């Protein structure tokens, strides 16, 4: 299985990216250790040059790492054709213990990488490298993510066995199935819907209050966005399993998160997940940016960027709501009843 072209492609991709990442982390360490902004000595000049190079390489690396999440999904979908019993990506991912673990890890790291890229972008807009030490320390601290990704990926790839019959999405996301997929599908739509809308109103209400109230609340409100958006993402997935999917497939018993990504459903899932990822990524980053308070000139730029993130996350959320509830509305208008 390791020789399957998609797996091979991902293997090469992951390895190359890890190599680049390691190179950057090595240099990041040197910069972190040796940085002395006030020095006019040779070493500092070299580090200043280096930071420019490293930040360009890591921009590329992390950007492609983020793309790898989508490539991984496509790969899982492609492999469903060769694995007996698989209907879509779910079959591939659940054919061994590592598939979903890797997917979940990749989702987490995608958000982390995105936040790092935004912080790097902010730092590069400044003349005095105010975030240099912090951002490179952060880079070193997130280094375990790509390492775990590659380990899980190879474990996943080596344990893919075309002679073993895997489960299909029909059984993984089935109310009678054991395991997390089953219990998620089993949880009633009304519970997940109320959770989801609670979080959404919490987010919007928090924003409204933050806008209206004074400074003290402003900071807390903005910081709260970070955990709120994580909750938003999780509840959005719950709603997708228990509610949205049933109306996309027009079938109560089918709750798959992956079947609707493909062409049979006009790439519905691409739009759905795209809006969800954009909203969550921008939203979390907006919260993170609130933590930047000094120096004043940097904080000012951070607030501007934060405003943009707020706007993007708001429209992302709206897009998710429209995309997500569109099938339900259409179904309701057509038939005049719920599923």
């Amino acid at each position, binding site marked *: 299985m390791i020789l399957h072209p998609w797996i091979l492609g991902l293997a090469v991709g992951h390895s190359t990216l890890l190599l680049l990442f390691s190179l950057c982390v090595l240099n990041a360490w040197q910069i972190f250790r040796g940085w002395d*902004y006030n020095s*006019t*000595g*040779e070493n500092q*000049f070299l580090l*200043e*040059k280096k930071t*420019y190079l490293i930040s360009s390489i890591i921009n590329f690396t992390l950007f492609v790492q983020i793309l790898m999440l989508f490539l991984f999904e496509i790969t899982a979908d492609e492999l469903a054709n060769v694995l007996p019993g698989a209907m879509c990506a779910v079959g591939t991912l659940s054919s061994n213990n590592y598939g979903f673990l890797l997917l979940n890890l990749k989702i987490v790291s995608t958000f982390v990488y995105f936040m790092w890229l935004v912080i790097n972008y902010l730092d*590069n807009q400044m*003349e*005095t*490298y105010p975030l240099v030490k912090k951002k490179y320390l952060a880079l070193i601290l997130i280094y375990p993510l790509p390492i775990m990704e590659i380990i899980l990926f190879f474990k996943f790839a080596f344990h893919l066995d075309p002679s073993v019959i895997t489960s299909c999405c029909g059984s993984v996301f089935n109310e009678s199935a054991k395991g997390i997929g089953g219990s998620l599908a089993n949880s009633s739509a009304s519970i997940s819907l109320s959770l989801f809308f609670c979080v959404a109103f919490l987010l919007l209400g928090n924003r409204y209050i933050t806008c209206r109230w004074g400074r003290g609340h402003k900071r807390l409100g903005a910081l709260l966005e970070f955990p709120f958006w994580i909750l938003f993402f999780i509840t959005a997935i719950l709603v997708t399993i228990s509610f949205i999917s049933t109306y996309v497939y027009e079938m109560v018993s089918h709750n798959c998160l992956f079947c609707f990504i493909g062409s049979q459903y006009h790439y519905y899932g691409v739009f759905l997940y795209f809006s969800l990822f954009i909203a969550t990524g921008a939203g979390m980053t907006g919260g993170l940016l609130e933590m930047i308070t000094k120096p004043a000139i940097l904080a000012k730029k951070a607030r501007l960027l934060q405003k943009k993130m707020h706007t993007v996350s708001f429209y992302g959320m709206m897009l998710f709501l429209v995309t997500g509830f569109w099938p339900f509305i259409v179904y309701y208008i057509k038939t005049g009843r719920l599923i």
Partner: protein
Amino acid sequence: MDNHVIEIINVTKTYNKGKPNEVTAVKDTSLEINEGSLVVLKGSSGSGKTTLLSLIGCQTKPTTGEVIIQGKKVSKLPEKFMNLHKRKNIGFIFQHFQLIAGMSVLDNIMLPLIPEGISSKERYRRANQLLEQFNLTHRREFKTSSLSGGEQQRAAIARALINNPGILLADEPSAHLDSELTSSLLDHISRLKQSGHTILITSHDPDVYQKSMVDHIFEMKNGQIISS
């Protein structure tokens, strides 16, 4: 009155550091230049004049030390911001003029404005004004390779001035000119000085540095300023 537009503090510039062809072109040099003055940097070939000029002109960064232009520590700036500062504040006339041969005089002169995102109307307005000032209007659409030496020289000055920089740097501007063109060049430079520009030129031509309008002469030898 201390009004230094250019300040160089303990600057060293080493090319090809750590390689067999390592050369220290500027050695632990300090220098201050007042606003509105005309300064000449003289010295034999290879003494480091061009290197010092490019350090001041934000063309390159020092190996150690500080370069401060109009109060801004440009040697500490990230490349992007250093270039920004350069485009705003510095006009550079290269030793061999470095006009782009395949382009017209007009396009050569307007080129520095392109990265500034200035509207084309404004670009043409400024360029036409300079073409007139330097008596090049009739050569507007000519390729620069077809110009005479004097015309090339004037086009190079016009290009250096299009950003309206406070500082003008010229690297051996008279090196390839006959005495008549040299004196016309000095006329232009004197007029620019009167209009408030700070000017720094390198030269080993007594015709240039012995002029009365020169405020200061620095002499370089082996990468260091030996007299001023």
